[in-house]
């Protein structure tokens, strides 16, 4: 694809794969969505400012509430943090980029287009039932608007983006640290991102499976979440299994960032940094066993209630350790109260209030009283805005000189902090007192007495929102006309401050070496003591061959756009019949997306894009594992969770159903047996293909791949025959309910994986014919095999679950 049709400046931003530019793209886009979601919030506050107000209709108010929540949680908080992570983490660990730069660019473009989709949902009637998307309100009967489908498509796209990012950062942090940068010496921010990634890898596949099931419920009339046998509870479980860890997913990067900022301005190391990291790990693990506290009023049983009360109180303890560590760092310190430090300190103070009020909600009795009220709204905004957004703004001021090479106006920044902090508390503190006012109501009667506190909150909202104008103006003018900052204006200790500002394209002229005592050294230069990291400018920025232009690729944006078109086409179709629901997708868009997707996949695979892997880097514990292989195994881990939730949903609907067809009644055991044998044989041919590649036998490799392809096709043929037969007998209909639909959705999702594997086989075959893979370069065959065998393993479980039990 010719890239020359765009002017160089445009081309640079569209096709870049450089981690710093992708980081800036993330930051700018997240701030754009921050403004959009903030404007929605201000309109809502205007609506609520006085009783009996009608600035917004009920429907529009509900849409604003929902999209505000979704935007802030998915499109602002995490991407804001990952903008910093993109830019800063390779610098802090001494790497030249992320492990997979094109994948990183693709993550960004998926994120951007998913955001476009969620905003586009307003055209079709945006989701209007709260960010938790509770069932059965999401069913086609109660929410016929296709805007919810578009919202679901947006959530699928951003989940794909997050999964790609997680794999990329995990491999980068584990495998690309500079020599001597042991895990135990790593700064807290990369640690926070590492822990966040672990949570993402467990939480987001669960969410992806949930949204996928929601989507098929709406598109094909299945009953996962609308069945009277506990469908609503199934959604509660899978959603909150993701939803509670998500709170820490958006919080931890800010805490890690604050843990870098406070020591810098307090001029002393973080007190108990290892305990802070240990606490993050503990909180991450416990976060996966607290989701039931969101379901105290759903009748989950006394034992479960007790368990979740204990775990919810337990999860607060690691955060106590983190806060105490920050406070201990500050005791007797001469803190330089720059804007970054002020925002960091403010974030801790607000987070403490948010955290303590969260512990109240662990109490079943209080939860019954406070649940669904503005007390809860205040609590989580103190966490998410007070702790997370304020912390991230601290990062913006802290690293702005590194990004631009210029200083911002400190006075304006301090005013920004003061007005924000006051505005924030005027906005949210009155909500603690509105503990009898239900959330998500569009208006209220004058005799409720809620008017004055709501008016106060609205005034606070405008103060807080207006304060952000100062931020944008300050940063906008400063990046053009601010005084030069020099490489290290804060006397920071982490590695990024040893580089010039802005950082050159290739980051490091020579990869630094970190000594056991924390000092670091570039090439043959002298030691730079950890604590006064002044840079010798002559040693960096000499313009190595590794440049922005060489690292550009058009395919990430094309592929993301193709996925956007494809899912938009799936979303904006119309139900052709409401009862039973049958669906007519918008095929032209789907076809466009599919064709563009195939073209971009071809271009991506054919593009000459090499990633240089540094030797002698610190990569414990995966020193002997290649980057790509670690990435694939990590991705397969996410797939395990994804299929685990699909199978879990099947168990749920099955154990909650009064009747279920006997073995062999609905599905032919012989078909299942035949498909299992075919797929197992395909695993044998795939492993024989690898064995042939290793000994340099091209014919053996071709035979193995052809065998795998043919057996994959045979599997799909038997499957298609079975589906058609079942369809002919009317099995795939509402009348057959959950037994049929759970089968079709689970095995259909597996079938899509088989098709993807076959596409890979075709690609590998084409390259084999051209002479690749038999000269010691067999790794692509090995990586394909990992995926194919995984697909086989999934079927090994699906066979007994659907055909034999």
């Amino acid at each position, binding site marked *: 694809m010719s890239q020359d049709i765009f002017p160089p400046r445009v081309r640079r931003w569209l096709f870049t794969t450089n981690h710093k530019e992708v980081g800036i793209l993330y930051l700018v886009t997240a701030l754009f969505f921050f403004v959009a979601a903030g404007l929605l919030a201000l309109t809502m506050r205007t609506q609520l400012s006085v009783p009996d107000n009608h600035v917004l209709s009920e429907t529009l108010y509900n849409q604003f509430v929902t999209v505000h929540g979704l935007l802030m949680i998915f499109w602002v908080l995490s991407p804001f943090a990952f903008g910093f992570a993109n830019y800063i983490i390779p610098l802090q660990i001494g790497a030249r980029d992320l492990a997979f730069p094109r994948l990183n660019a693709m993550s960004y473009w998926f994120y951007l287009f998913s955001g476009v989709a969620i905003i586009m949902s307003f055209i079709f009637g945006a989701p209007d039932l709260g960010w938790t998307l509770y069932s059965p309100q999401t069913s086609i009967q109660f929410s016929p608007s296709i805007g919810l489908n578009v919202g679901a498509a947006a959530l699928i796209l951003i989940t794909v983006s997050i999964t790609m990012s997680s794999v990329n950062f995990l491999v980068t942090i584990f495998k690309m640290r500079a020599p001597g940068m042991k895990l135990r010496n790593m700064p807290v921010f990369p640690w926070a991102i590492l822990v966040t990634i672990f949570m993402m890898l467990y939480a987001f596949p669960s969410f992806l499976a949930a949204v996928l099931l929601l989507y098929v419920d709406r598109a094909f009339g299945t009953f996962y979440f609308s069945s009277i046998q506990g469908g609503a509870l199934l959604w509660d479980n899978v959603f909150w299994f993701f939803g509670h860890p998500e709170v820490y997913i958006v919080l931890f990067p800010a805490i890690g960032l604050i843990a870098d900022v406070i020591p810098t301005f307090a001029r002393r190391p973080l007190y108990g940094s290892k305990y802070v990291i240990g606490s993050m790990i503990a909180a991450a693990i416990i976060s996966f066993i607290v989701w039931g506290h969101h379901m105290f009023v759903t009748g989950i049983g006394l034992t479960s209630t007790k368990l979740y009360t204990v775990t919810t109180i337990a999860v607060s303890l690691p955060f106590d350790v983190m806060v105490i560590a920050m406070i201990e760092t500050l005791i007797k310190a001469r803190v330089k109260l720059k804007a970054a430090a002020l925002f960091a300190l403010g974030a801790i103070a607000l987070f403490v209030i948010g955290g303590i009020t969260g512990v109240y909600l662990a109490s079943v009795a209080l939860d019954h009283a406070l649940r669904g009220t503005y007390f809860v709204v205040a609590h989580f905004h103190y966490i998410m805005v007070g702790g997370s957004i304020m912390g991230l703004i601290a990062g913006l001021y802290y690293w702005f000189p590194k990004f631009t090479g210029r200083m911002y106006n400190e006075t304006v920044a301090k005013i920004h902090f003061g007005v924000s902090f006051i505005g924030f508390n005027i906005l949210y503190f009155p909500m603690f007192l509105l503990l009898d006012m239900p959330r998500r109501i569009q208006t209220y009667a004058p005799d409720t007495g809620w008017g004055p506190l709501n008016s106060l909150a609205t005034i606070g909202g405008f103060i807080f929102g207006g304060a952000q104008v100062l931020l944008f103006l300050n940063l906008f003018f400063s990046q053009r006309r601010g005084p030069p900052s020099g490489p290290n204006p804060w006397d920071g200790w982490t590695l990024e401050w040893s580089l010039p500002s802005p950082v050159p394209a290739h980051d490091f002229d020579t990869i630094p070496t970190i000594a056991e005592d924390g000092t670091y050294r570039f090439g043959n230069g002298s030691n730079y003591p950890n604590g006064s990291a002044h840079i010798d400018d002559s040693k960096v920025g000499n313009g190595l061959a590794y440049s922005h232009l060489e690292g550009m690729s058009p395919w990430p944006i094309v592929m993301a756009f193709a996925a956007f078109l494809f899912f938009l086409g799936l979303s904006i179709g119309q139900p052709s019949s409401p009862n039973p629901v049958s669906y007519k997708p918008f095929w032209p868009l789907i076809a466009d997306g599919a064709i563009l997707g195939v073209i971009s996949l071809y271009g991506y695979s054919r593009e000459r894009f090499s990633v240089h892997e540094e030797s002698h880097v610190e990569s414990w514990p*995966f020193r002997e594992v290649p980057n790509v292989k670690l990435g694939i195994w990590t991705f397969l881990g996410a797939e395990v969770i994804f299929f685990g939730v699909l199978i879990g949903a099947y168990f749920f609907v099955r154990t909650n159903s009064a009747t279920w067809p006997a073995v062999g009644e609905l599905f032919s055991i012989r078909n299942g047996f035949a498909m299992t044998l075919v797929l197992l044989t395909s*695993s044998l041919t795939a492993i024989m293909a690898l064995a042939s590649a290793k000994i340099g036998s091209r014919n053996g490799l071709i035979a193995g791949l052809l065998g795998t392809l043919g057996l994959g096709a045979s599997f799909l043929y038997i499957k298609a025959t079975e589906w058609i037969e079942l369809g002919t007998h009317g099995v795939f209909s509402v009348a057959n309910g959950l037994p049929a639909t759970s089968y079709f959705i689970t095995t259909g999702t597996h079938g899509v994986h088989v098709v993807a594997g076959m596409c890979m086989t075709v690609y590998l075959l084409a390259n084999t014919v051209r002479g690749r893979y038999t000269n010691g370069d067999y790794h692509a065959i090995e990586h394909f095999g990992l995926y194919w065998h995984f697909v086989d393993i999934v079927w090994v479980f699906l066979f007994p679950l659907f055909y034999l039990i």
Partner: protein
Amino acid sequence: MIKLNTTYLYLLVFAILVGGTDIEFNLATLQATIPYNYYVSILLGLAGMKAILIAMFYQHLKYEPRSLSSWVIIGLVIASLLMSLSFLQLHGH
């Protein structure tokens, strides 16, 4: 211990996988004679055994560095624990 030629090893694993599948298939005909809980446990146990064989030999996990195999096992254990907890919770309904 006998060291098998790689090809023979792959074929042996394949034979065990097919044999396991055959046992599963034939068990279905005996379903009425086996208590249902035992029946389900045996089938899931067989499936688990087949999955482990595929992972160890076809995905080469047995021959990978300990760090990678531990990585996968720890991930699976955590995932299994979480899912078990989910099932317990769901069973409570």
